[in-house]
């Protein structure tokens, strides 16, 4: 067979379709194809009967049960997505609550919150020095019971007119803290070239003067938002006091026992060790109680002063807004969980895929070997 006898792919396809041969090689190939097709080979009647007996017209049942994988995926994926979004919406509805006031704060704090509305005239917005009338209009922010030890933390956002006013308000805030017996823990003052400016102050104010401080700080400009949280420390204080009293009694008993001259040396050593431990524990408890008392007597006030240009508009969310916010958060959580699952499962999926691929290649090789024989 010469090189001229080689029949190209297109001509081969043409011959298979029954086109007329154009060369001697093609004539031979066409004759071969005719010879192959000439053979009569029908399935035996016994086989036909056997096969048809296994297929008793199942069309109705089959069409009902048919669930192509791809079509199934087209259903499953949207359903899963809808479920995820639905769950997020339900979470959002449940979590959004029904009230009109913002509920971003815990219930204990919620009562202590002043309304975050701009209590000055909305049209003004100017950072004029607060009038006495305006000062009186500052909403009272209850800071808890005076008979209990409580830690008060407050944060205020106040808008001023410009950088000059910002500087003045910052100094004034520091003065307010010191005048009330407190101090400014930190002051960060920023006036970028792009305009505007902010000052972040953390003030420590004696608990008894928090109310006054909040009123005076709010009056430094237009109150944008105010948040007060109160944490009860009375129980912690009482527990610590009880522990201290018990440790003191224990130490007194140990000291008395050690004064006994008839005490054996071995036991004396043991008692001294125990006494040292109790004294160390007492020191720790005393230190902890001192911290608790300090937290209860000094409030932390975080004040953000900003010019009108850089002030962040207060975030008022209605019920729908809260619902959407909650739903989006839930969706993000779902996405995080899905990502986590994917990260955990990825190595196993990879290994599974690799094993599947190797097995497939092995079977292919085996098939080729079997059919090449």
């Amino acid at each position: 067979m010469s090189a001229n006898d080689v029949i190209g792919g297109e001509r081969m396809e043409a011959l298979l379709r029954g086109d007329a041969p154009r060369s001697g090689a093609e004539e031979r190939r066409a004759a071969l194809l005719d010879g192959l097709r000439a053979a009569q080979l029908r399935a035996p009647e016994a086989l036909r009967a056997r096969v048809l007996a296994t297929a008793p017209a199942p069309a109705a049942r089959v069409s009902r049960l048919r669930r192509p994988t791809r079509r199934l995926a087209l259903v499953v994926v949207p359903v899963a997505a809808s479920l995820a979004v639905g769950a997020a919406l339900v979470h959002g509805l449940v979590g959004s609550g029904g009230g009109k006031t913002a509920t971003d704060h815990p219930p204990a704090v919620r009562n202590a919150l002043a309304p975050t509305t701009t209590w000055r005239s909305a049209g003004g917005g100017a950072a004029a020095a607060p009038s006495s009338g305006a000062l009186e209009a500052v909403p009272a922010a209850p800071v808890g019971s005076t008979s209990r030890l409580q830690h008060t933390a407050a944060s205020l956002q106040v808008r001023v007119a410009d950088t000059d006013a910002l500087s003045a308000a910052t100094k004034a805030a520091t003065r307010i803290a010191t005048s009330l017996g407190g101090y400014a823990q930190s002051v960060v003052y920023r006036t970028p070239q792009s305009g505007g400016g902010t000052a972040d102050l953390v003030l420590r104010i004696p608990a008894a003067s928090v109310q006054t401080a909040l009123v005076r700080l709010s009056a430094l400009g237009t109150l944008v938002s105010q948040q007060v949280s109160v944490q009860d420390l009375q129980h912690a204080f009482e527990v610590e006091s009880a522990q201290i009293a018990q440790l003191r009694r224990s130490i007194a008993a140990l000291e008395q026992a050690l004064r006994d001259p008839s005490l054996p040396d071995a036991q004396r050593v043991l008692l001294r060790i125990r006494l040292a431990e109790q004294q160390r524990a007492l020191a720790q408890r005393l230190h902890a109680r001192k911290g608790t008392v300090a937290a209860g007597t000094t409030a932390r006030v975080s004040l953000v002063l900003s010019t009108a240009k850089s002030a962040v508009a207060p975030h008022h969310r209605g019920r729908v807004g809260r619902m959407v916010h909650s739903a989006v958060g839930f969706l993000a959580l779902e996405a995080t969980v899905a990502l986590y699952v994917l990260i955990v499962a990825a190595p196993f999926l990879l290994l599974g895929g690799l094993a599947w691929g190797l097995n497939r290649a092995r079977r292919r090789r085996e098939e080729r070997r079997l059919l090449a024989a």
Partner: protein
Amino acid sequence: MKGVNAISSSLDPPRALGATPRFDEVAAEQLDAVYRYLVYLTGDRAAAEDLAAETFEKAFRLWRRFDPRRSAPRTWLCRIARTVAIDWFRAEARRKRREETYSRDLGESVEAAFGDGLSAPLEAALRELSPAEREVVALRVLLELDGPSAARVLGISQTACSTRLSRALRRLEEMIGDVRE
């Protein structure tokens, strides 16, 4: 040249797009084609008969997965038939290894394995081909599957399928030529 073959020439009977044909109709239409493919693949009519029956039993069980938009019934059945036949080849190989003698000598079969009416040289030449070569001849020439469908049944690329077919036909021509000379 078409129509010589006794097999039904309707590869894809016109049906509504996506409509699933009845299994019994498909079985009746495609039985000869599947049987012929298996005869060529195995070179053994008795085995092909058993495998054809097994193929249709399996196809009946899997019928709900059949999607007429993805492949023709003949292509789908041939893929199942091939899987069944591969298992048979595997079992035969195991049996051969176990017994170390292959009792069924295909070359000594008196019956014309590949069809009545084949010339003796062509019959002999077909016996000399490997099962892989015979099956591509069966799929492309006898069952008249197009290139992509045949490649899909064989699990190879279309180019590899064409190459295998050309090689098989060239070998047949050579062997027939040798016999005639």
